[in-house]
């Protein structure tokens, strides 16, 4: 064969191989383990701006929405979002209603016993109060005897309950901890003066403070990684590969910086945690 033609075939061949690589990855992910072929079905609790929320036009927005869309794109899958309250996410994963929970689920050892989780972001617990901080809350101890709203089933609930128990043991008045279905309901209760504080996450509390609605009185409590959670190890591994790629090519940094989220330490690659993993 003529050398020029051979060269041309080699170049076209190499190019199409590179082009086909993401498709190859996607071809590895079919149903099962995906619930629906060609789709990444993810549950999200779109009530905590700026992470995930619904804008006035009813469209899903936020850092995690963009993160999920980018991951699905790189996997060659269509992103299907299911906007549900957080308390259904883990049962939904167990019951194969969705492939993933992209909602900033905090990492806990109990959850890692039943789900595959990729810690990818740092979060900490904050306390939001009414504008002007009328009760002068500057630490959790000042919540003693006060009413605090929190979302049901979350890490924030466990942390504030733990803090409350410690304070009560030390002789303080107990807090009244009110659980709501979503953070949006909890913030509504704060707005209505039905509670004195909302216990949520740093970036969300700051978002509301910047909007001038509530003040972030306390932040940085009980910091822990937030994760993407999956029911299937295969799906989780595919997403892990994609995420580490995003870290290498700068997409991860750009995305998290844009929304003000706290990144994981740059020197270590992201890892998968799960039931059969150390």
């Amino acid at each position: 064969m003529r050398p020029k033609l051979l060269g041309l075939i080699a170049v076209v061949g190499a190019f199409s191989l590179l082009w086909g690589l993401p498709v190859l990855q996607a071809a590895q992910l079919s149903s099962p383990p995906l619930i629906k072929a060609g789709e990444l079905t993810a549950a999200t609790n779109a009530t905590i701006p700026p992470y995930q929320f619904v804008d006035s036009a009813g469209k899903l927005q936020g850092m995690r929405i963009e993160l999920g869309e980018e991951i699905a794109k790189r996997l060659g899958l269509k992103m299907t979002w299911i906007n549900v309250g957080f308390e259904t996410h883990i049962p939904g994963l167990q019951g194969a209603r969705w492939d993933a929970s992209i909602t900033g689920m905090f990492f806990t050892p109990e959850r890692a016993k039943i789900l595959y989780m990729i810690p990818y972001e740092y979060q900490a617990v904050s306390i939001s109060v009414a504008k002007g901080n009328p009760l002068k809350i500057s630490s959790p101890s000042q919540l003693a005897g006060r009413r605090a709203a929190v979302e049901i089933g979350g890490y924030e609930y466990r942390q504030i309950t733990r803090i409350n128990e410690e304070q009560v043991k030390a002789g303080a008045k107990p807090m009244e901890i009110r659980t709501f279905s979503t953070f949006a309901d909890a913030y509504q209760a704060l707005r209505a003066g039905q509670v004195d504080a909302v216990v949520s996450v740093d970036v969300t509390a700051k978002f509301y403070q910047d909007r001038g609605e509530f003040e972030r009185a306390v932040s940085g409590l009980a910091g822990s990684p937030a994760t993407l959670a999956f029911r299937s190890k295969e799906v989780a591994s595919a997403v892990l590969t994609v995420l580490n790629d995003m870290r290498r090519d700068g997409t991860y940094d750009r995305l998290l910086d844009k929304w003000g989220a706290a990144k994981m330490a740059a020197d270590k690659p992201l890892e998968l945690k799960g039931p059969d993993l150390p």
Partner: protein
Amino acid sequence: MPGWDWNAFGRYLFNWYLLEGAWTTIWLSVVVMILGLLLGLLAAIMNMSKSPILQGIARFYLWIMRGTPLLVQLIIIYTGLPQIGIRLNVVHSALLGLSLNEGAYLSEIIRAGILSVPRGQFDAARALGMDYPTLMRVVVLPQAARVIIPPLGNNFNGLLKTTSITSVISMEELLRRGQMLIQVEFRVLEIFVVAALYYLVMITLWGVVQRRLEAHFGRSVAPAADRARVAEEPVKALERKEMEHDLR
């Protein structure tokens, strides 16, 4: 971990966390039922009054409370009213919302019961010189009660389960407690089966109470065969007297 876990089920069967939630459901239902009955009776009587103003108020109350969803009513009371300066705490909000709603439905049941009492009873009571409150208390309501109890029992049955809607304004009743326990222990089926069993127990106990109530309020109406026998006796006695008279 898929599959049913009998050990977990046994643990949850007498779980104090869920039992506390069940207690909240019970006391909420009982208090709401009592308040609802009072409201419903008042509304029913106003509805049947000759005064157009009283009738108007009662009908407006029924229209609003039966025409809007309970969920909306609760959220308005708890989260909406503070906007205009009326702030009720969680328990008061739940009781107010549920009682107003229940009272509206009960008022129609009570009105049906009162309507079922024959006109003659009212007239006879009036002829005996009773005033309205007395005739209602002594003559009409005890008879109306017989007709009111079955649908009322039905409502209480529903109320025991409807109280779960208060979780939306952060009341920790049985269903909400079940949801919270699942977040910690992840055994969805076992926990919800236990919650369902608790509801069943509550409903069954109420069923026993309702049957007793029906027997008590229905005691003036004996079964058909007895009624026939009792009805015949005065006639037979009269016939005997006439025969004796004729034979004399």
